[in-house]
């Protein structure tokens, strides 16, 4: 990874900070978010690793992580973060950066028909809000 001042202070980091209302450098990498994340085993890098990528200015790499989509906004991380960083909001801003770029993660037609029939509205609306923007 090539680091430079320009990269570390990338405009996209500022964008993530503005959208999430969180300070990327507020995180001191204790990993408590990862320790309590119910989805951490489906993420690589894990939550604090995504924060680290942002601290290093690697926003586009952070946007390519599974964590962005696996995060269920359950707020286990945020409610225990000793630095008061709301990681769920950071994840949301990364999702939105992708979705607003015009590439939905899930299209309704991409879901199995029987799932669409069975799943409650709450699930479908949540899915649409989180994965289609």
């Amino acid at each position, binding site marked *: 990874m090539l680091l430079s001042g320009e990269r570390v202070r990338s405009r996209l980091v500022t964008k993530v900070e503005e959208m999430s209302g969180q300070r990327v450098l507020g995180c*001191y*990498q*204790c*990993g*408590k*978010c*990862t*320790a*309590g*994340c119910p989805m*951490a*085993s489906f993420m*690589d*890098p*894990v939550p*604090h*690793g995504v924060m680290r990528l942002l601290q290093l200015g690697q926003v586009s790499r952070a946007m390519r992580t599974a964590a962005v989509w696996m995060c269920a906004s359950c707020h*286990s991380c945020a409610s*225990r*973060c*000793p*630095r*008061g960083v709301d990681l769920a909001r950071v994840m949301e801003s990364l999702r939105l950066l992708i979705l607003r770029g015009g590439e939905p993660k899930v299209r309704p037609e991409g879901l199995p028909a029987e799932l669409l029939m069975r799943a409650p509205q709450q699930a479908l609306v949540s899915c649409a809000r989180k994965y289609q923007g």
Partner: protein
Amino acid sequence: MKRVGVFVCWCGRNIAETVDIEALCRQLGRDAPVAWVEDYKYMCSEPGQQLMKKAIAEQHLDAVVVAACSPNMHEVTFRLAAEAAGLNPYRLEIANIREQCSWVHRDRDQATAKALDIVRSMVEKVARDEELQPLRVPVTKRALVIGAGISGMQAALEIADAGHEVLLVERQTYIGGHMAQLSETFPTLDCASCILTPRTAEVARHPRIKLMVASEVIEVGGYVGNFVVRIRQNPTYVDWSTCTGCMECVEKCPRQVPSRFERGLGTRKAISVAFPQAVPYRPSIDAEACLYFTKGRCGICQKTCPVGAVDYEQKPVIHEEKVGAIVVATGYELFPKARIGEYGYGKYPDVIDGLEFERLNSASGPTSGRIQRPSDGKVPKEVVFIQCVGSRDQEKGVPYCSKICCMYTAKHAMLYKHKVPDGQAYVFYMDVRAGGKGYEEFIQRAVEEDGVLYLRGRVSRIFPEGSKLMVWGVDTISGEKVEIAADLVVLAMAMVPSPTARDLARVLKVSIDEHGFFSEAHPKLRPVESLSRGIYLTGCAQAPKDIPEAVAQAGSAASKVLALFSSDELLHPPTVVRVDPEICSGCGLCVKSCPYEARQIDPVSKVARVREVLCQGCGACAAACPNGATQHINFTKEQLMSMIDTFTGPPDGAGRER
């Protein structure tokens, strides 16, 4: 007309780069009261001072302005030099053209003009300064030390050994503080009792230490050298002067309660000594637990006592004592586990804090030093130690680092491994802060020789699962979430100030920081002094620290006290306020505005007066006085107005812009 000398310092390039010294001196030389102007590269240096002394003598100067850095830096230096040259030191003023001018400006012309104004205003002031002599007050050469932990005891011993009487006041019924609860100490692993008990014994038998346990300081009046202190001695319900310490009462007492000294892991009797090595070795009754006090029956201890020392009617006694100096050594407490929800709110018996582990590990503790977990007495085979619990946690705890936890956690893990060699110890840490002699080596020993597994990361949650405690943590180095089925979890809880510190600070009228630690006068240069003269700080009352630091600071605080006691009189700055009784209407506004209780209305003459040694020269009353009866000596209204006029008066050739 006074003959004022002005001495302009370049401060190397600090001033000279921004202020045109030559122009400044030229302008000043034309001013009427200025009889002599000189500049020098470093006025505070020996040659600089010589130059000033020489000019004072040769030019018959009767007032001096030194245009240099802040008076905080060198006012004393220059005043002493002036005094040596025969000038009254209060006839020397500092014009601060560094912090207030050259450091904060770029434009050379404007900075020079401003420097000129600053110096001129001080010339106006100094021309009206009176010759003053410091006030002299006698010193009571007797010290009060509040708190008899290791730091307080050390301070008391050092002062007493130097020949002064010390009043050592302790809230608990025993001395030794938290150190008495420790098993071994890092990084040497020497037994805490073995190094503490010689100290407690020395304190107890020292002819010049008057020990008052079960006592609290409730009121402090007076001032440096002359404090009047009121101390409440709480009842122990045993007359210790007749008690022989036979402990028959303890044996017969039918009531068992959790022991606070054992942090609830062991029990004590309602009448008992806190622990077997307690000094003084005398029992006291816990009225909240005692059947006689709670239910009005029993009385066995009184009947048992062969010398009739048990006295249920004992009341608090208030003692009034005079002391010249006070050392605050109120120590620390641990942040309560009950505040950490994700670790079980202190409800899981096998999640314990560091002091509880100390008691488990102590040969005199509830398990006689065997490592057994509280819930079922089993020897734990998987033990998780968690650092920074409550510390470095601005959300649920305190933002600061508690400083000693890295070391004592390594010690705990190591001692555990020595006692349970087939067990596994894990340490969750964020950083290992081992800055101290032999400290880093100690950590490495824990890792390499004792096989303690250090995991970098915090723990998110602890919950019981069967007889185990599930610990959800992370190892940020591998990026893996980790799960440990632990038998025992030890939390290195944050250190917080003693719960009594806040009230005591109010009583002492000294400041505490946002967390409740006593504030030192200067974080680097005056670390053991409070902002109130004659009140000194030591140990964890000031900030978290380990035993060597607490002891070193105690020595430092003691040496401050001894310096204070080294003369029979104290000098008090004479720049206090003064009242013109002819003008004073006795309105009392000055009394209200004074934060130091230095102002009073004379009951007979009904006009205000000044208790000069209490006056700190803050000027609040002078500002509040509606008719100018109160004047601040050498800061009189006339002086201040003349200074202001200098700044607001018409510009001159120096080109001041309006």
